[in-house]
């Protein structure tokens, strides 16, 4: 994803104001179908495009699969009522408009008409209700629906949901990235709800053809695709006009193979190229490279067991951390990381909090040493956990170990494979987890901070006391006024940092490459195929 202009905050304000007032017009029903032939490009359009994808997701159920890879692949097949555009703003996709009541409790969606599924049927309100209730049951938004709240059909073109509390930020959940609210035919949804979907039928620009485990997913252009009447601007929202007849997501776990295969033209696009190879790619005139901003990176300290229960010791760590040094080891090319103290960086214009920059990269070792000396820490060896799965996190962890040593905190680095790391860090013991004292971890972007697991799940924030931020988070949902809502969000961040609940370090972009035959490629949590042309 090329870096976006970040000056469109007024759009967000205007949209929210309109939303509070009543129906939000998102576009009419006119549309453009997919077409196999392209004009205006030199050379013949390729019939097959191969994307060397770095990860094979655990599930292709768009609702239950939580991996970025699941979303990246299945968004070609499925669409939601709402989607995020290239500026991370919520737009209508399968609905033509939506309305929220003045009290923020009732959300009503007018569906677009004549939207075909891949099986030839036309999308109905029954399909939408069944899909959204499946999502409500099996997505991480369960807190919204814990009281039995269901989506309901109002008429053939309208569905609605009624909450017991105001939920002014609900649109961000509905336009969520992973585990998204994909719309599919009612008959595709598992009756028992326990199994995942077995037929991948959606309204998106590509039809699902085949999944070969450990090999590939094959997609075929859906020529009857009908999108909304506005163009995509690099995100998921808009008319997803595609021209490539067949797309293969080849699962290639070895980074060298992905790079070599793209160099020779065996693959057209490759994701997650090693940061060490960026200079090599940039020197190759036959390759193009893109930044795909996907992750926020934090330091977490165990606040239930061990020495980091002491707030001053956590503060010492924050004061001591030299993020420039960390990034120098983790990111040979600085263009792929962005040091920021804001929970969401300025890539998200709505959620960026400039004041939070004061809390990052302070490099105040003298003050940090004093805090360590004044604390009850006895010099014992602490556990600094990292994973081999993310070399940049591991490299930063090794530097962090040295920085902590300088202020008198003695750490031992323990590195594990991803599966073990997940089990060690999130062991869900309410009494505490002694597997770690401190770790660096990246989290994928979510559509809004209120849907972030870090702020709602004590295990994801190393047992920090979430009651500190519960009230302003709740108030964020209860107000229709954008400025008031953002005020509460600022309060949440101030509390996060003043109480030393976590340390935000940076945002991280993955490196995607393509051959020079690929044109108009954007990246938005993976390669975005709408608008892309690939010539022979």
């Amino acid at each position: 994803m090329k870096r976006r202009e970040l000056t469109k905050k007024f759009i967000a304000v205007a949209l929210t104001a309109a939303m509070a007032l009543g129906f939000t017009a998102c576009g009419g029903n006119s549309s453009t179908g997919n077409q196999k032939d392209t004009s205006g490009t030199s050379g013949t359009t390729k019939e097959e495009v191969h994307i060397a994808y770095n990860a094979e997701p655990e599930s292709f159920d768009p609702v239950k699969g939580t991996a970025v890879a699941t979303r990246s692949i299945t968004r070609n097949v499925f669409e939601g009522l709402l989607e995020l555009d290239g500026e991370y703003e919520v737009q209508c996709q399968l609905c033509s408009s939506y309305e929220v009541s003045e009290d923020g409790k009732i959300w009503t969606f007018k569906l677009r008409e004549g939207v075909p599924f891949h099986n030839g049927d036309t999308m109905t309100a029954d399909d939408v209700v069944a899909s959204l209730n499946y999502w409500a049951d099996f997505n991480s938004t369960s807190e919204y629906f814990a009281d039995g709240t269901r989506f309901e059909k109002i008429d053939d073109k309208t569905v609605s949901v009624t909450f017991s509390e105001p939920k002014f930020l609900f649109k961000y959940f509905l336009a969520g990235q992973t585990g998204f609210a994909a719309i599919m035919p009612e008959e595709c949804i598992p009756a028992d709800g326990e199994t995942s979907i077995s037929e991948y039928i959606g309204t998106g620009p590509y039809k699902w053809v085949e999944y070969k485990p450990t090999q590939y997913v094959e997609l075929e252009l859906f020529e009857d695709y009908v999108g909304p009447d506005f163009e995509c601007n690099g995100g998921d929202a808009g008319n997803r006009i595609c021209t490539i007849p067949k797309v293969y997501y080849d699962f290639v776990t070895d980074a060298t193979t992905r790079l070599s295969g793209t160099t020779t033209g065996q693959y057209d696009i490759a994701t997650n190229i090693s940061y060490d190879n960026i200079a090599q790619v940039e020197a190759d005139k036959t390759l193009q490279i893109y930044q795909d901003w996907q992750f926020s990176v934090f330091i977490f300290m165990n606040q239930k067991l061990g020495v980091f229960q002491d707030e001053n010791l956590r503060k010492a760590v924050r004061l001591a951390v030299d993020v420039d040094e960390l990034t120098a080891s983790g990111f040979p090319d600085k263009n792929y990381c962005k040091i920021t103290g804001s929970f969401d960086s300025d890539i998200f214009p709505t959620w960026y909090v400039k004041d939070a920059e004061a809390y990052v990269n302070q490099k105040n070792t003298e003050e940090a040493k004093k805090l360590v000396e004044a604390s009850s820490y006895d010099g014992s060896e602490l556990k600094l956990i990292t994973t081999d799965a993310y070399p940049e996190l591991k490299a930063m962890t090794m530097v962090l170990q040295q920085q902590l040593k300088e202020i008198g905190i003695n750490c031992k680095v323990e590195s594990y494979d991803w599966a073990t790391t997940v089990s060690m860090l999130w062991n869900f013991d309410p009494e505490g987890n002694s597997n770690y004292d401190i770790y660096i971890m990246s989290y994928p972007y979510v559509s809004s901070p209120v849907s972030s697991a870090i702020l709602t799940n004590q295990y994801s924030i190393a047992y920090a006391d979430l009651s500190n931020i519960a009230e302003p988070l709740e108030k964020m949902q209860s107000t229709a006024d954008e400025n008031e809502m953002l005020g509460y969000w600022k309060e949440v961040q101030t509390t996060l940092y003043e109480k030393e609940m976590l340390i935000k370090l940076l945002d991280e972009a993955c490196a995607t490459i393509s051959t020079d035959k690929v044109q108009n490629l954007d990246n938005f949590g993976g390669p975005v195929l709408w608008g892309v042309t690939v010539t022979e």
Partner: protein
Amino acid sequence: MKKYFFKRLFYTIVTLLIVSVILFVLTHCTGADPAKLVLGIQATPEAVEDLREKMGLNDSLIVQYFRWLGDILHGDLGTSYMKNKTVTELLGESFMPTFNIAIYAEIISMCIGIPLGVLAAKYKGKSASVAISSVALLGMSIPGFLLALFMMMAFCVKLQWFPVAGYTPAMEGFLEHIRSMTLPAIALGFPQAALITRTTNNAMLEVMNTEYIKTAKAKGASEGAILFKHALRNALIPIITVCLQSFAVFFGGAVIIEQIFNIPGIGTLVFSSISSRDYYVIQGAVLVIALIYVVANILMDILYGIVDPRIRITGKSK
């Protein structure tokens, strides 16, 4: 013969049972929770607990083991947590790529290893023998993955003679099939060729010093007849052993080579299953590999009897 058959069958079952117990315990003691991996790091404890229950992971290990064993006896190796397919289906899909690589690697290693071993024995003490021994030592020292990466850079990226990655089944084009298999087979087979060279050389040298070879020489037999008719045939036992063991090694040890060349074989399946702690797939795949080892050993016994009539399948020699 019947007695031998039932005896081997009994040993095979006992071996596989022992393997199954060790395998089950090891995979379940790796300290990672498949439910957490399925649901991701943003999952709630409730969701994880719910999924663990559905996966049957909350039962005791003994209950889980006997449930798995019972399913195997009914021909069911289980269903993958992650890939939503039965283990039998997954193994069926990944068997042929690995089998093909193993066969081609075996052919390469034998075609290189046996003639070079014979030549090294023939030219014992001469520069040719020293050169062959040095190449063999080098071959055994170079890790297969390094050779694979070097060949990929040279023959795929620079010369573009072979595809960088992927597998083409023979049915979809034999030439493309051979192109996709050549480098993985060389990377896997070359180090093993070095081992076969050394084994052949040692076995040949031992045989060449025996009385019957001296007698053959004294009787004026040709050099070719001495080397291949008398010496090589009598040196075959250790060579067969190392070749068949190589085949089993190719099956179980192709993980890294399959990863590098993105071959969708058993190695890739095992690797991805270990990463996601997909227990049933790991157990099923390793059990199949263990079975291949056992079958390779039975084949070895049969071949011993064929190449050396003194050895009987009862295991006793006259």
